[in-house]
């Protein structure tokens, strides 16, 4: 046994607290509670987008919301894999992966296996697939650093990257999530808040068309809370889409000169 244990040493990340304490950040009736980064409950982190992050791709974008940093590359439209059947409309292929150092504990990012299919479903409805028949558009995302609300950031960033690649869409897709912590709803939660949340709600929508492409609700919610959360998200989405649009406009006017 001693010989075997030597082959692969077991490691652990030394953390400041030996035992994880229950959230000191929140008590049930405590409305005066301050968020870890000092934001108001209904205040989003500043959003930053930049197109053309990866030159090898047809289109790409980098997004940074606080500590959440993602890169999305779009390839294609290009030949579908040989094994695929003939298709009148184009295919969308999505993949989300994490760097090993994205999460506080190494390699934890691979837990989010469902993100690839959720990204696919969020974008599918917005893309005019009939404009590239028989071919595939690949959307690949890499989370460089996970700071909370990863999937909404990936989705918004992917739609900017698709626009950068010149893929036809009905509208930009913006995504925002809220967390329910006791009696409060906080928008654009950071990692710490997400780990203590009672429930989460994420909306992905096309703000100009006022259409929702994806809505996920998990955990404990009451109907009025859901309404409140949805209103918050929809409002934030339309503001986020303006930021995304201005980033694209800037990039377009810079390339004109």
């Amino acid at each position: 046994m001693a010989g075997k244990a030597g082959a692969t040493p077991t490691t652990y990340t030394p953390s400041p607290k030996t035992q994880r304490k229950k959230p000191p950040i929140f008590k049930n009736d405590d409305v005066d509670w301050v968020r870890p980064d000092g934001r108001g409950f209904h205040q989003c982190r500043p959003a930053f987008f930049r197109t053309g992050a990866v030159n090898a791709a047809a289109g790409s974008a980098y997004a940074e919301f606080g500590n959440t940093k993602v890169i999305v590359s779009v390839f294609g439209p290009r030949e579908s894999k040989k094994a695929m059947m003939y298709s009148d409309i184009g295919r969308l292929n999505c993949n989300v992966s994490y760097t090993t150092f994205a999460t506080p504990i190494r390699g934890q990012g691979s837990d989010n296996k469902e993100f690839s299919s959720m990204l696919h479903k969020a974008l599918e409805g917005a893309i005019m697939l009939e404009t590239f028949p028989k071919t595939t558009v690949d959307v690949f995302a890499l989370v460089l650093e996970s700071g909370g609300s990863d999937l909404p950031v990936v989705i918004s960033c992917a739609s900017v990257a698709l626009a950068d690649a010149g893929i036809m869409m009905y509208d930009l897709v913006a995504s925002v999530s809220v967390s329910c912590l006791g009696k409060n709803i906080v928008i654009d939660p950071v990692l710490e808040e997400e780990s203590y949340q009672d429930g989460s709600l994420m909306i992905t929508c096309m703000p100009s068309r006022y259409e929702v492409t994806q809505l996920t609700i998990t955990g404990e919610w009451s109907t009025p809370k859901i309404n409140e959360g949805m209103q918050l998200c929809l409002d934030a989405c339309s503001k986020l889409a303006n930021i995304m649009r201005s980033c694209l406009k800037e990039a377009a006017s810079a390339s004109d000169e």
Partner: protein
Amino acid sequence: MVSQLQAQDGVEGIGYPNSSGDLSSEMEVDAFRRLFPLRFFERHLSESIRPDGRPLGRARDTTLALGAVASANGSALVKIGLTTMLAAIKMEVMTPLKESPDEGCIAVEFHMPPICSPLVRPGRPAEVAPVVSKQFSGMIDLKDLSLVSGKAAWMAYLDIYCLDADGSLFDAALLSAVAAFSHLQIPVVSMNDEGRVIVVSEENDGGGDAVNKEKRKLRLCRTPISLTCILHKNYILADPTAEEESIMETLVTVVLDSSDQLVSLYKPGGPALAHTSSVQDCIALTRQRVKEVQTIFDETISGMEVD
């Protein structure tokens, strides 16, 4: 330069439309580049210049940014031309091996995620990735990673991600690794009552004395810096782009340390055979490159200290 290209002397090449001289003179430069890449490049090389305007022996502009990843103990973002590498180091505590009780361990992994190149698809790792991973070794004295002899040592996970692949991947990967190690801040830790190592932070001071008050930085025994060159006929092209690598396939990678000693030399086959003289030329180019990179390093670090 560009207009000269169209006045090609089309002698060799079956089916090359220039034999009559009409088509190629009208051919767009871009189309010519795609259809006859090798001729396109050779035409440039004979004028001692490359399509991106560089002389043959010059590397692309290089930039360094330290501390790009907040969730890691040390990190660096390196750009050589368009090739972009992000390296980050995470430190974890392990029980050292029985055979080497006062040595730590370093695990290096080179990743090519599908975002970096149209050739990489998810689930199918790129061919070059393991090749690059393998070339890192002996950079650090593993004894420096020891905490408590026989009980605890550091395991350093170095992960290098290629964010944009445009040739000379190994050079960029190595530079980002070296830069990440130079940025590395080892957390101060102490042993608690149960014999586990915990991080000492300002508010949490009850775990006994710090084990590693002085050893917050890792010393590199040597700073390896590399340069990849393409050998093509009697030309030597330093720091090739992905396009150049795909057309002319003979690569030589030379790694030198800061005192100009040869660390490794790597020529993975290829159609052209290297003469001793051309290998020496590659080493001379690398020597120049080492100086260049050191200035970039010094500038970056002094720029960081000002902030």
